[in-house]
């Protein structure tokens, strides 16, 4: 008989919550900055949002080692794209690339739950939401990660996006102004932090619009 080893898993769950909202000429992407494992907090100041291109940011929760590997791969692919085409990748193109990258590891997936926020070729806000194996959809708003079940119904209630089954297809962007969208995101996270132990510490909000990109922060509960 061989000795039974304790089960080892290549995956961990580091928690975290991401939200993105698309507007007519802006996109708000937000995530908390807590990184945890089980009941322990590994970091209170870990950014889950990275800039992939000039008009494209990605917020990712799940297993941060996989997220890091994914970010590195996307950055490398984007560098090659820039050398070949002499321009930045558009957000819809990055959306497709992210889907293909995730599906490439269909049978040993990146344990990451992503939302991609940015501006499309017409300058409209766009949000792409993903599962771990690359199934994706362009939506008006989305939330992913440990607090998504708490946030999603509230976003539905406040933003009421048209059904994707409607014909002709309706625009998915939300009617809110940029400042209102930022306030809504803050409210969402303040509520989610009350009930989800994996969400908290600090909220990082990245706003993309025609003037460029800027980041702002809000303190959240630290317990």
């Amino acid at each position, binding site marked *: 008989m061989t000795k039974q080893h304790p089960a080892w898993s290549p995956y961990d769950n580091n928690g975290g919550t991401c939200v993105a909202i698309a507007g007519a000429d802006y996109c708000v992407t937000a995530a908390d900055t807590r990184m945890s494992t089980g009941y322990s907090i590994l970091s209170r100041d870990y950014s889950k949002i990275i800039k992939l291109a000039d008009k494209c940011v990605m917020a990712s929760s799940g297993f941060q080692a996989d997220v890091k590997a994914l970010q590195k791969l996307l950055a490398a692919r984007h560098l090659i794209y820039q050398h070949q085409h002499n321009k930045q990748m558009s957000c819809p193109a990055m959306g497709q690339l992210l889907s293909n990258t995730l599906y490439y590891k269909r049978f040993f997936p990146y344990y990451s739950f992503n939302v991609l926020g940015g501006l499309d070729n017409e300058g409209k806000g766009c949000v792409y939401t993903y599962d771990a194996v690359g199934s994706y959809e362009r939506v008006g708003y989305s939330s992913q990660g440990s*607090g998504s*079940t*708490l946030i999603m*119904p509230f976003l*539905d*209630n406040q933003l009421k996006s048209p059904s994707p089954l409607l014909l002709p297809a309706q625009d998915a962007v939300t009617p809110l102004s940029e400042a209102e969208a930022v306030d809504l995101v803050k*409210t*969402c996270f303040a509520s*989610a932090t009350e*009930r989800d132990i994996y969400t908290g510490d600090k909220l990082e909000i990245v706003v993309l619009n025609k003037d460029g990109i800027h980041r702002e922060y809000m303190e959240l509960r630290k317990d």
Partner: protein
Amino acid sequence: MVGKNCFAIASDRRLGVQLQTIATDFQRISKIHDRLFIGLSGLATDSQTLYQRLVFRHKLYQLREERDMKPETFASLVSALLYEKRFGPYFCQPVIAGLSDEDKPFICTMDSIGAKELAKDFVVAGTAGESLYGACEAMFKPDMEPDELFETVSQALLSSVDRDCLSGWGGHVYIV
């Protein structure tokens, strides 16, 4: 959910066995007396049995004491009945809401073996529990009047059950 001298208790209307919907007009919330309601989510047969036992015990109490049960007393009764079956529990999660004689609202939920959770603002139970927590946490305000409370509870319920495959088909809302 608690308001100013009032409370609201709400549920959806779907009865299903896993993915199959059996009924779309199911009454999950029952009246114990004019100022006391109980909602039972979980295995329907256990909910009904438990409800019958609760009504029975409440009638005995009315005969002996010649008055209605206080919400706090009733919650303890439910808890005791559930804990009797500690090792073969009723598969249901009760939500109790009542108004005391001084119009003070009382709300409470329990797990299937009767561990009480008394909250001052709102309690949730069932398959859409986590969605409801998110919605209620964002929408709740203290000391709401009945009209506003009705709107808040209804909006929270509707948006939550839309994100839960096992809940839906409209809802019942009681304002007391």
